[in-house]
């Protein structure tokens, strides 16, 4: 009996280790393939170079870094307010029956394949933006709107957890002091849940930075520094996905190096989110 316990425990341990090992392998592989060219080209000219012509020996990924930042920030400007408002509604205002319908509907949103979002983007959103605001339509704005909708489920569910974690005494106290429901939400509940709400945004950001398929379809993929939201741009992920199939030699290495930058980006975001979570944990 004890032997069996022992074996099962070890098997579970190995299973846990294997997922770690996969992460380590991916990280090591991407870094080994990607770093030589960064060092050869010089980190500065790789990260801050504005010209990307990999078949002619120019490897600057600044346009892609800026593209990713623009698109991600844009997505958050949309998903942040809408997501938090939706979470507040679900936790504080919605009657039970309404919340029971809205909650699964939002989770369903997370289950739609990204290529479907991209397709709707190219067929409906892009022509709309082209006709309303001008420009080619395939733009940062289109990508930000599509991504904003895509990260909504992440933002809403984490924001909801944060709001639900606010001790009920705080709310009772505020109401007892004569605050209206809205004042209680605005002055007590939201500030108390602040760190959790920021975590929601950071994790949404991580999801937005990493999204590829839908972005490729609507962002235009032009390799130039974007100046306004109606410009087409290229993100780090779409750069890799667009060119990987054809790339060889230094071009391929440069795409791995793009992957390294993306990796570091996402690790920083996750570290930020973890820090926030831990700090929130120590509060209680």
């Amino acid at each position, binding site marked *: 009996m004890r032997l069996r316990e022992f074996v099962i425990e070890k098997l579970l341990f190995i299973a846990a280790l294997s997922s770690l090992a996969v992460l380590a392998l991916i990280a090591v592989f991407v870094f080994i393939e990607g770093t030589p060219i960064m060092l050869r080209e010089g980190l500065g000219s790789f990260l801050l170079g504005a010209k990307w*012509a990999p078949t002619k020996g120019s490897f600057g990924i600044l346009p892609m870094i800026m593209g990713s930042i623009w698109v991600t920030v844009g997505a958050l400007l949309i998903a942040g307010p809408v997501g938090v408002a939706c979470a507040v509604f679900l936790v504080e205002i919605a009657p039970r029956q309404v919340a029971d319908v809205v909650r699964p509907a939002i989770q369903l949103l997370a289950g739609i394949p990204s290529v479907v979002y991209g397709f709707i983007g*190219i067929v409906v959103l892009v022509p709309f933006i082209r006709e309303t605001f001008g420009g*080619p339509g395939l733009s940062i704005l289109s990508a930000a709107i599509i991504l904003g909708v895509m990260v909504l489920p992440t933002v809403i569910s984490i924001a909801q957890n944060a709001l639900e974690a606010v001790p009920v005494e705080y709310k009772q106290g505020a109401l007892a002091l004569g605050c209206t429901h809205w004042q209680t939400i605005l002055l007590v509940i939201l500030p108390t849940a602040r760190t959790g709400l920021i975590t929601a945004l950071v994790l949404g950001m991580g999801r937005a930075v990493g999204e590829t398929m839908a972005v490729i379809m609507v962002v235009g993929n032009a390799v130039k520094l974007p100046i306004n939201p109606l410009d087409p741009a290229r993100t780090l992920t779409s750069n890799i996905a667009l060119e990987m199939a054809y790339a060889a030699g230094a071009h391929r290495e440069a795409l791995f190096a793009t992957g390294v930058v993306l990796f570091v980006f996402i690790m920083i975001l996750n570290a930020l989110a973890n820090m926030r979570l831990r700090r929130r944990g120590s509060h209680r």
Partner: protein
Amino acid sequence: MAHHRRSHLLLVMAIIAGLSIGVAGCRGPQSGGLTVAGSTSVQPLVEHLAERYMAEHHGEVVNVQGSGSTAGIRAAVSGAAAIGMASRELEPTERDLHRFLIAQDAIAVIVHPANPVKALRREQLRDIYARRIRDWQQLGGNPGTINFITREEGSGTRGAFQEIVMGDAEISADGIVQDSTGTVRAIVAGDRNAIGYISLGMVTPEVATISLDEVVPTHDAVISGQYPLTRPFLLVTSGEPGPRERAFMDYLHQPACQAIIEEEGYVPSAAESRS
């Protein structure tokens, strides 16, 4: 360094492949399919022909995989695929491969059907993609900024366009980049100010073709060599093809297959044959 590591990876892949061939081998004497990999432009055509080939040659299996011209040529060199497909001419470093022409494809320049501009000279097209001409008005069309759409770096279609139209000029970084024929066509079909280029075989009535140097891209113009924007569809093998590769490649030159190639909108090239 990198090559060393890649050979390890290849070794692992070879072991896996070896195991799966071993398993597949139990099914019959004709073990292990003929793998054909490369250009996504050539892939649909070869896939179609391979199906016929398999139906007519019982027991023979041909796997067709699309991964891009450069990747296909690399696969043929490394032995990962028996035959590589390319939708561009071989580069000087690739000249030692065995080259086998199956068809000529024309690249059509397309615009929205409502666009009044129906003809361009090659220099004008070059200037559009180099962003020296920015407005349709400069070409006699309705005023509006030209939204030009190009393919991604390394695409065979882009390679041919660069070589034949652009020459030494660079395609401007302002252009929209799409990674498939279908999306280029979809965007042009929806945008009155857009221009793009796709394989002639993929043109549908949603978009209008533009005549280049006063030659309308038709089948006849491509055969006669008048239409300037054409490129070869190639199969390549590393060294002389073996008997199985030879059998498949020769099959593609049979009249029945050449007729299908023509039906699909490409120009068959049995006449020009192997070099």
